[in-house]
């Protein structure tokens, strides 16, 4: 039951975590803002299942990759705002390099003709 709600948008664990951290690099956000940003920046393709957003946020917070604070929003409402920590920044770098390696590898499998075709 837990697994079902983890992340529906990716097959690799931690991709949502990476997207959240990346988005936070542009500045602190609250939960709702994060989901909006990810949706916008992905061109409306990635609709974060908000049911998995908050578990992910709290998981990252537990791992001390992001930190949270209560702030007053524009409408004078209390919201919990997350920002990236130094540890999170380092983790983001390694996640991103892992992701690039992975996507290259997948691309390599999907397009094998490149190396074989030239003879």
């Amino acid at each position: 039951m837990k697994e079902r709600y983890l992340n529906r948008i990716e097959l690799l664990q931690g991709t949502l975590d990476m997207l959240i951290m990346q988005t936070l690099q542009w500045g602190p956000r609250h939960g709702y803002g994060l989901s909006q940003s990810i949706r916008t920046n992905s061109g409306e393709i990635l609709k974060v299942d908000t049911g998995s957003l908050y578990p992910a946020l709290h998981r990252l917070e537990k791992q001390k990759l992001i930190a949270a604070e209560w702030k007053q929003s524009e409408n004078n409402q209390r919201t919990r705002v997350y920002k990236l920590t130094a540890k999170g920044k380092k983790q983001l770098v390694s996640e991103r390099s892992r992701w690039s390696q992975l996507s290259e590898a997948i691309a390599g499998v999907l397009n094998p003709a490149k190396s074989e075709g030239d003879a």
Partner: protein
Amino acid sequence: MSFLFWRRKQRDEELDEEIQSHLNMAARDRVERGESSEQAKQSARHELGNVALVKETTRDIWGWRWLTEFAQDVRYGMRTLYRSPGFVAVAALTLALGVGANLAIFQLIDTVLLKPLPVAQPEQLFFIENVGVQGGGGAPPYPCFETFRSNTHFFSGIAAYSPSGMKISIDGQIEQVEGQFASGNYFSLLGVRTFIGRPFGPADDSVIGIGGADGPVAVIGYNYWRRRFAGSPAVIGKKIQVGTTGVTIIGVTPSEFFGMVPGQDVDISLPMSLADPKLLSDRGSWWFDAVGRLKHGASKEQARAELDGFFQAFMDERTAMRGLRKDYFDHIELAAAGLGAEGLRTESVKPLMTLMAVVGCVLLIVCANVANLMLVRSAARRKEFAVRLAMGAGRLRLIRQMITEGMLLTGFGGLIGLFLASWGSSWLVSFFSIGRRQILLNLEPDGRLILFALGLLFITAIIFSFGPAWRSAQIDPGPVLKGSTTAASTRSSRLQVGKLLVVIQVTLSVVLLVGAGLFLRSLQNLKHLDAGFRPDGVLIMNVDADARNYGKRQMNDFWQETLTRAEAIPGVSSATLSRLSPVDGHDDGAMIEVPGFIPRADRDKTVSVNQISPEYFATMGIAILRGRAFNERDNESAPKVALLNETAARFYFGSHDPVGAELHISAPRTADPYEIVGVVKDSRHTSLRDEVPRLLYLPALQSNHPLPRLTLAIRTAGNPSGLAAPIRSAIHEQGADVLLTNVVTLNEQVNKSLWQERLVSSLSSIFGLLALLLACVGLYGVISYTVARRTKEIGIRIALGATRVNVLRMVLKESLALVFVGVAIGVPGAFAATRFISTMLYGVSASDPLTIAGAALVMGAVTVPAALIPARRATKVDPLIAIRYE
């Protein structure tokens, strides 16, 4: 932010707030885009998904889920239990009995069998004993021990110790205490520090007769210190008199130290150099024990072999003991000393283990009972479970809930059981102490006991709650919620389980009853066997005139006066003095040579010896078969005489009449021949169970050495205890320095010697009856349930013309069938189980058919009323109401 458990509530609220603000913002955005506020709220919520699930998943991330759920289960369990006080009372009480009994017995087992000595690194300590084919124990003579001590390479130290009764005089007051002589390095070897003062060391043990630079010193035990000196620190430096030696008390050992012998306490320890110098130099006296600490890295076998080498060389010089050498002094063995000397342990192992098995069975029966109760209760809660299942609870969660309730029950029962156990343990220990010697046990709970208790509670809870929990979780919520009452399948299978449990209870009860019956019969056999003497009407006591330091003539005169005084007391029909009294647990031995008898080994020459005054046989009620008893004319100037018991006469003389024949005593060697003047009937000697040994009686007056300690016995027609006071004052008139100890009637002494049998038989009877009661209650419960279930059917039968008798018979048949099956399994079970206790029985075989039949009958008889009550209820069913009963 730390993820501390107790900040959970705050974080829960914050999470709620966070999600709420998310919803608000999402709704606001939608409103800006043109939706109505209502619709906006709904779609925002919809987009977020199942809010509750989100919250739960997030909380999961925090961890602590199992703990939260456990806390929930406990709270819920407490609420449901609170609503059924009757159930809780019955279940908790039966659990308390079962758990309490187990804890009490285990505490005893722990204290007697498992607890290591309170010394440093007990696993490195070993007793150094000489053993042979026939037996062994104890250390070799002191000069040999000294050879060990100076030459061993594998022991970091060896110490000798010798428990010895000592007469202590403090400010003129004399008393008898349990003391010991111990080597100077005894305390440092064991790693025992003193509570106050200092222990004695090798320096205090250097000069024979004096000790060391501080003169004769002593260390006293904690209990003795509190008892005799009221725990006053002024005891350090106090001078007291031990025997004829003045000693200074220099230290008090801590409260948990009791020496090397479990069950005994050491009131005072003196350095070895203060012991009898003759013994210290005697190459032929075996009188003390030795313990050594193995060096790090040394192997036990190396150490043993090295000591054995010295021992064999020592024994080779001793030609006198040649015959007995192989039997008792063949080689050195090292026995683990970490648990202390093994006397109490070996005596108690079988009885304690048997009791453990008995209480274990009782606990199983208790679990069966409580399981049955839980089954019935869960039947009533089916709707509740159905609702929970329908709402999405996992079956595992439900099972966990039930098991938690079971643990709560066990917790209550366990708490009550703890009280029962502590009360029971003290009672058990006092029972132990009724034995031949005072047995002192330290009952402080230790880690092992706590671990056992927790483990026991846990396993008990699992045993009785898992089954019912599993069944409850299997229900199909649909039909139950719809109110269907014809879920006959679940009900009948519940009944099957209930019946199975009853059968198990009956089986176990039968086994316990058979065991109890066998023990009771053994005890009866022992009590009623012809012991060869008549214990009624006899009072005995130990008289100690050692302080007088008399020679032979004076000692004889003293004893003569004692007898005269005793006989003068009104009510006394005869009085006697002897070294040993029947079944007092002590023995004295000698080796004799009988002309015409060729011994096959030294063993054949050994006899037990008792030195007695003329009225011994009259007082003890032992019959004289041939010849005569001793009389006043057999005094120190007359020719030496002796008496044999039947066994000795038969052994040495066969069918010839021994009267008139002569025998010689070869050890301890005496010059004179002894004329045998009579043969007396066999009587039990050291204990009732042991076979009668070959016994030689000698007149006390003709003893070669003065006898400073003898047992006085008087026979009276009336109540012997009533004469205790007059005798005390009569003896006191002879002098205040004469010690009188251990005043008991002979009957009491006989009872004391049977303490083990009495302990086991009384406990097994109690638990057997308890098991019987529980089985009856279980049967009653199941039959009631059956009747309730079949009310409709019974109603129909009655309506169709069945008589009350028919109905009664129908119900009874079912219940008796259960009992029959239980007994049928129980009887072979008893056969199998009692094989283990056959060595503890006396006069009955482990498969005694009478006892087994008796147990089966008792079982059957007692269960009839248990079944009868619900059966009679069945007959009273009103058919009209019953047929409409759903």
